[in-house]
């Protein structure tokens, strides 16, 4: 009896515990459902009360079947830009719907199940309500989407894209296909690696770029070194790569959006204006701005590939040879550079000079020369009649040694002591000019080739005043000087 009573008590106790356990599970289920319902309600309220969220809601709802599993993609709908097929329940535009096999553990399977339930509970009421509110009972769908047309159930051993990755995007973006044949395609684009730059579902950045545009290009094309130089090109500095480059392909070298001249002219109109001038620098005329300029960054203003004059010597090595001669313009040693006389783009004057005739020389030599030269007997002789502009073995920058440089115009027999039978005063540097303290020439003491205030371009006195002679021949007597040598 006692044993039975004990057994009965135990049985009654067990039933009570079982009922208590059932009530507990029921309460837990109810609480869980209430919580889920609360989530659904808040989602519905949030959806109905917040503006601008229609697309997001629609995206989630339209793709609810896929998102049951691919819950990690749900936040994608909240990004700035969402890929249209992704938004319009068109996952299958790009993806095959079945056949995905995943290896699951118990825990991961449970987590996945909870996520599915949560997604259904949270979004299913919203779907129902929106369907009821919708005039035709369903969220408007983009019936014209090309993705729907391409939606073909494909069953395979594994989940895969409906077309090879290198061709898939062209299915909708076929208008870009021609660019693959451009002379200079962007390698990722040419290889169909669109996802190197674009996110297929959604992005916070224009054109669905995977990362911010100012960061995207430099992931493959690091610009750190260029940006660290003394001068960076403004578009590079602002990471506006597409100001100059087409990210898919171009007919122009460097994937430029236009030929170099026209591209550069868009921001440099002052250089564009030179294109109408008569004489144009070869690189400028032949669309080769980058022959001289570094488009990203340079240590040499203005974005030159090398410092002057070395940059110029690259194409004009003979000029460097001239500048190494005994007498040379001080190019590269002081403030004077090639561009001190030449315009690197175009001018209206020969040799790309800034001015014609003697004007270019007067830019620097005006004060000591121009005043007297332009009123002298030599005024019709251009500076380059006697001088060479870069370098010479005969100073100052003469085309020939003195006095030979004079003889093309002044006949030798009348002025050269070495010709015509000693009829002329010595003018050759084998003699010493005691006044000038240098080797004698026509111009050391007697004549000023750039004009003087005296006749016959004499430096010191009018002819025939004896001062012209005495300036040398009245000095300390010596060999061949002094009035009575």
């Amino acid at each position, binding site marked *: 009896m006692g044993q039975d009573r004990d057994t009965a008590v135990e049985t009654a106790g067990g039933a009570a515990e079982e009922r208590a356990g059932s009530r507990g599970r029921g309460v837990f289920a109810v609480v869980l459902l209430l919580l889920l319902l609360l989530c659904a309600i808040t989602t519905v309220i949030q959806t109905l009360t917040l503006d601008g969220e229609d697309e997001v809601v629609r995206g989630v709802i339209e793709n609810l079947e896929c998102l049951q599993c691919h819950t990690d993609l749900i936040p994608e709908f909240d990004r700035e830009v969402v890929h249209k097929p992704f938004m319009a329940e068109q996952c299958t535009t790009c993806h095959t719907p079945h056949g995905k096999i995943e290896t699951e553990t118990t825990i991961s399977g449970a987590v996945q199940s909870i996520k599915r339930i949560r997604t259904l509970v949270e979004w299913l009421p919203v779907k129902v309500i929106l369907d009821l509110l919708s005039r035709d009972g369903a969220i408007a769908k983009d019936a014209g989407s090309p993705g729907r047309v391409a939606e073909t159930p494909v069953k395979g051993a594994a989940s895969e894209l409906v077309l090879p990755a290198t061709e898939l995007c062209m299915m909708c973006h076929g208008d870009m296909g021609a660019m693959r044949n451009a002379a200079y395609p962007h390698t990722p684009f040419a290889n169909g690696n669109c996802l190197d730059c674009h996110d297929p579902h959604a992005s916070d950045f224009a054109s669905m770029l995977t990362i911010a545009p100012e960061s995207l290009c430099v992931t493959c094309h690091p610009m750190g070194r260029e940006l660290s130089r003394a001068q960076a090109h403004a578009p590079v500095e602002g990471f506006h790569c597409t100001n100059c480059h087409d990210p898919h392909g171009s007919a122009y070298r460097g994937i430029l959006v236009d030929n170099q001249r026209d591209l550069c002219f868009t921001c440099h109109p002052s250089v564009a204006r030179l294109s109408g001038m008569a004489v144009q620098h070869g690189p400028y005329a032949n669309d080769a701005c980058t022959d001289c300029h570094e488009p990203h960054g340079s240590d040499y203003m203005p974005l030159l590939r090398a410092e002057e004059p070395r940059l110029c010597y690259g194409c004009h090595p003979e000029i460097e040879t001239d500048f190494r001669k005994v007498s040379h313009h001080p190019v590269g040693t002081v403030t004077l550079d090639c561009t001190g006389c030449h315009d690197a783009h175009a001018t209206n004057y020969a040799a790309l000079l800034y001015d014609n005739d003697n004007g270019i020389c007067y830019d620097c030599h005006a004060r000591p020369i121009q005043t007297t030269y332009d009123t002298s007997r030599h005024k019709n002789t251009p500076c380059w009649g006697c001088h060479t502009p870069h370098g010479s073995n005969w100073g100052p920058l003469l085309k020939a040694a003195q006095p030979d440089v004079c003889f093309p115009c002044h006949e030798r027999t009348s002025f050269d002591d070495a010709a015509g039978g000693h*009829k*002329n*005063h010595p003018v050759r540097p084998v003699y010493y000019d005691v006044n000038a303290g240098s080797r004698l020439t026509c111009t050391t003491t007697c004549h000023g080739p750039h004009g003087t205030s005296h006749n016959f371009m004499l430096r010191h006195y009018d002819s*025939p005043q004896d*001062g*012209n002679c*005495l300036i040398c021949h009245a000095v300390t007597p010596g060999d061949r000087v002094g009035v*009575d040598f």
Partner: protein
Amino acid sequence: MAVLARATKGRRTHLIVSTRRLLIGGVLCIAMLGVVSPAHAYDETSTGRPCAGCHGASVNDPAGPHGGYTATSKKCATCHSAHKAPAGGIVLLPAATVLATCQTCHDGTGGKGVYGTIYARTSQQPVARHTMLDTAADPITAIPGGDGVGGGTRTATFSGTAGGLTCSDCHSPHGSNLVDPFTGDRARSATDTAGLGSPSSFSSTRLLRQRPTSTDAGYASVTKYGSDWCAACHAGRLSWHELYNHPVEAATTYTGTGSAFTYESVARLTGVGASTTELGSLGRNNFGYVMPDPRTDQQSGHEPICQQCHEDARSVGDVTARTVDATEVFNITALDGSAAGDNPRYQVFPHESDNDAFLIETDNDLCLNCHKQPRG
């Protein structure tokens, strides 16, 4: 009406002729000015415009083109052409040689220069010439009596063609490093513009160099014209050498009191017939070419200088009294030695002479100017 027409026609004809003459004259003037030519001999006496009028700073510039250069004077171009010198000779001169250049002005044309004067006036060649050819073929390099030790001839390198003697070996054409001025005989129209009226105009350096052999080393400068100047070349003629030379007074050999005689300071007679002396220049009178006997105190201890025997030929000295009579006095009446009866006649010493060895007189006349005849 006919008379009026003729008169009008005559004026018109005259006008045309006058215009034509003016045009011809203008063309000739332009042609003369336009032709580049070297300097040529110029007769300053006949033109009335002395050389210095063009070549000197002013007509009162006694140096002419030969000195007095300033920065604004215009003399150098008289002789030198910096370019296109006509002859292509030396130092841009208008002629091929220095001699030829000097002769473009001093060529004796009309008997008023130096070389060629005697021939121009007499058609007779001079008896003596200080020979100076200035040619490459026959340069004068021998100096008679130039050997100061042996008394013989020595050779020297002069500044003329091929090292031969030329004008500029004795003269400085630039008036540089000259001897002191001395009173000479000749009156040059270039300097004596008053026409023999200004004694100061006879004082000149004659552009004689202090070192006549300027290219010949070893000879000191001579500042006073006299025996020492001659001895710069003819050193062997000085009496102190153990040779059979007539005694000669020179500063280099003089051992007496006071100064040695020079051309500007010799003992000369005080006047016509006088037997007393005074110190004065040998030039512009004949009183210094004779010595009274007995000698005066001023002459005691002195010897004659070279020029007391060697000068322009002239008539001086009474053969018995060793004085100068009225017929032998210095008498130059015209500029440039151009008067035929003047004494001395040519005034071109030491370039040429009608006496041998540039002696002032010949034979006994010369010796008896100072010495008695051995037997009365």
